[in-house]
C-alpha cells in the first residue's frame, strides 16, 4: 500500500501566505457509548483565500465532521484548527462563515424572505438594510419572485437555493457547504453546480464543499481532498486547474477525465486500505 499524499504540498504562493483555514494534526474522537470512535486522524490542510476546495470520500470518512470542526459545531480532540487565524469558536462568534447544510433547514413558519433575513435579524441589522440584502441575494439565486412564498410552496432545489442565499445574505468571506445538492436529482444538480460556479467566480469567496460525487467535485473545485474512512483521514489532495470560464461541457474533455481518474484512484486506494 502506497500512501498517496501524507502532507499536502504548499501549492500556490497565495495559499501559503494567508490561509483562511489552517488545519494542523487534527484528531477527533467521538466518545460513543460502547467504544470511542476515531472520526478524524492526523488531518493537515491549509486553504487559501478564494480557493474552492472539495472534500470527497465514502460515507463515514469524516468529511462532514471536518467541516463541522471548522464551523465550531464539533470540537477537535487533538491538533489545532485556525479560521482566519483564530480558533473556530472565535470565528463563529465573529460570524466569519456561512454554512449550507445537507437539508435546506428553512424555518417553516418564515417566508422565503424572512428565512433569508434571519441571520441579519440576529446580527441586529435594521429592517431596510435586511430587506435590501434579501432582495440582492434572492436575485443572485434567481428566486426574486418567491420572496413572499413559504418553504413548503417551493421544490427541494429551490429550497436549497434559498438556503444558499441565506448563507450569502451577510456576505461572509468563507462558505462551508455540506453536500448541499446531495438530495437533488441529477439535472437540477447540474444546473445548481453551474450557478454555484458562477457565483463563486463573481464573489471570490473561499468555499469548502463536501460531496460524494466525483464529477461535482472535479467540475467545481480548485483543489480536491480525497478522504477515506475508519479512521477518517486524507489520502490525496489533487489540484484541479480547469479554465475559470468552464461550462458543463468540460466534463467530456480529456483533462476533466484525467482529474476524475486520479480522484477515483485515491478513493479506491483508501477503500482497499480499509478492507485491509
Amino acid at each position, binding site marked *: 500500500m502506497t500512501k498517496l499524499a501524507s502532507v499536502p504540498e504548499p501549492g500556490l504562493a497565495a495559499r501559503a501566505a494567508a490561509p483562511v483555514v489552517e488545519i494542523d494534526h487534527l484528531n477527533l474522537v467521538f466518545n460513543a457509548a460502547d467504544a470511542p470512535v476515531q472520526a478524524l486522524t492526523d488531518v493537515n490542510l491549509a486553504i487559501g483565500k478564494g480557493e474552492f476546495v472539495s472534500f470527497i470520500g465514502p460515507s463515514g470518512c469524516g468529511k462532514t465532521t471536518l467541516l463541522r470542526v471548522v*464551523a465550531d*459545531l464539533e470540537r477537535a480532540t487533538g491538533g489545532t484548527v485556525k479560521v482566519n487565524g483564530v480558533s473556530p469558536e472565535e470565528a*463563529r*462568534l*465573529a*460570524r466569519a*462563515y*456561512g*454554512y449550507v*447544510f*445537507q*437539508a435546506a*433547514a428553512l*424555518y*417553516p*413558519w*418564515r*417566508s422565503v424572505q424572512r428565512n433569508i433575513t*434571519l*441571520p441579519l*435579524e*440576529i*446580527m441586529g441589522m435594521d429592517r431596510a438594510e435586511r430587506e435590501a440584502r434579501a432582495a440582492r441575494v434572492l436575485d443572485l439565486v434567481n428566486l426574486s419572485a418567491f420572496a413572499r412564498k*413559504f*418553504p*413548503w410552496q417551493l421544490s427541494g432545489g429551490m429550497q436549497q437555493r434559498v438556503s444558499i442565499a441565506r448563507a450569502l445574505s451577510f456576505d461572509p468571506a468563507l462558505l462551508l457547504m455540506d453536500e448541499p445538492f446531495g438530495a437533488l436529482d441529477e439535472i437540477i444538480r447540474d444546473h445548481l453546480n453551474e450557478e454555484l460556479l458562477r457565483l463563486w467566480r463573481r464573489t471570490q469567496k473561499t468555499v469548502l464543499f463536501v460531496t460524494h460525487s466525483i464529477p461535482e467535485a472535479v467540475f467545481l473545485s480548485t483543489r480536491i481532498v480525497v478522504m477515506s474512512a475508519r479512521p477518517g483521514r486524507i489520502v490525496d489532495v489533487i489540484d484541479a486547474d480547469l479554465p475559470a470560464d468552464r461550462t458543463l461541457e468540460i466534463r467530456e474533455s480529456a483533462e476533466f477525465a484525467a482529474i476524475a481518474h486520479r480522484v477515483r484512484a485515491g478513493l479506491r486506494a483508501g477503500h482497499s486500505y480499509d478492507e485491509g
Partner: protein
Amino acid sequence: MSGSLGPVLAILGVLVVIWYAGAVALNAQRVLDGYESEETTDWTWRDLVADTLSMERPILPAPHQVLIELDKTVLDVAPTSRRSLVYHGWVTLSSALVGFVFGTLLGIVLAVGIVHVPTLERALMPWIIASQTIPILAIAPMIIVVLGSLGLVGLLPKAIISAYLCFFPVTIGMVKGLTSPDRIQLDLIRTYSASETQVFWKLRWPASVAFLFASLKVAIALAVVGAIVGELPTGAAAGLGARLLSGSYYGQTVQIWAALVVASVMAGLAVLAVDLAECATARHMGGQL
C-alpha cells in the same frame, strides 16, 4: 364545510334517538309505580311513553323538556336576572377564563424553566405529575376553604382551581414544543452565534406554537370544569355549579340537564375560539402549523 354537514346531522339524530329511548327506559318504572298506586289499569303503551317523556322530575329528562327549560331560562328572562342561565353561565365562564389565562402563563413559565434548566426537570416534574393525580373534587374544597379563611371569595378561588387544572397540559405540551426544533435548525442558528434569548424567540417559541394550541384546547375545557367544580363545595349562590347543586337538592333533573347543556355549549364555544385563534396564527405563520 357543507359536505360535512350530513354526517354531523346523522350523528346528532342518532344521539337524540338514543336519548329518547333512554328516557323512556329509565323513567318507565316510576310511571308504572304511579299507575299502580293510582290503580290505573287501562293504560296503553302510548300513554306510558307519553308519560315517561313529560314527568316533572324524571330520572332522565327528554331532550324537548331540556329545550323548554333552556327556552325559559335563556331566552325568556333578561340575561342579568338570577333566573337566567346566561347570567350563571357568565359567572362560571368569567372565572374559567381568568383561571385559563393564569394557568396558561404558569404552564408556559414552568415549561421554559424545565427546558432551559436541566435540573428543574427532575426537581419539578414529580410535583407537576403528583398535582394532577389528586382528584380535583378532593382538593377543590380545601382550596376554597383555605382561601376563604384568607378573605378570598368569589371569582378568584374558582379561577385558581381552573388554573390548577389548566397549567398541566400547557406545561407538558410546551416542554415538547420548545424542544421540538431538530438538530439542523439548532446548528443553523448556532452558526450565527445567536444568544440564548434569540434562540428562544426565533426558533423555540415559533416551533412550539402548534403544541401550544393543542394544549390550550385541552386547557380551556378543563378551565370550565374547574370553575364548575369550584362552585360546588361552598354552595355558591351563582354559577352553573350552583345551578347543578340546587337542582340536585330539589330533584330538579330538568334544571340540572339544562345547566349541563349550557356548560358543554360554553366549553365548546371556548374551544372553538381557541381553534379560530389557531387558524389566524397558522395563516400568519405560513399555514403549516
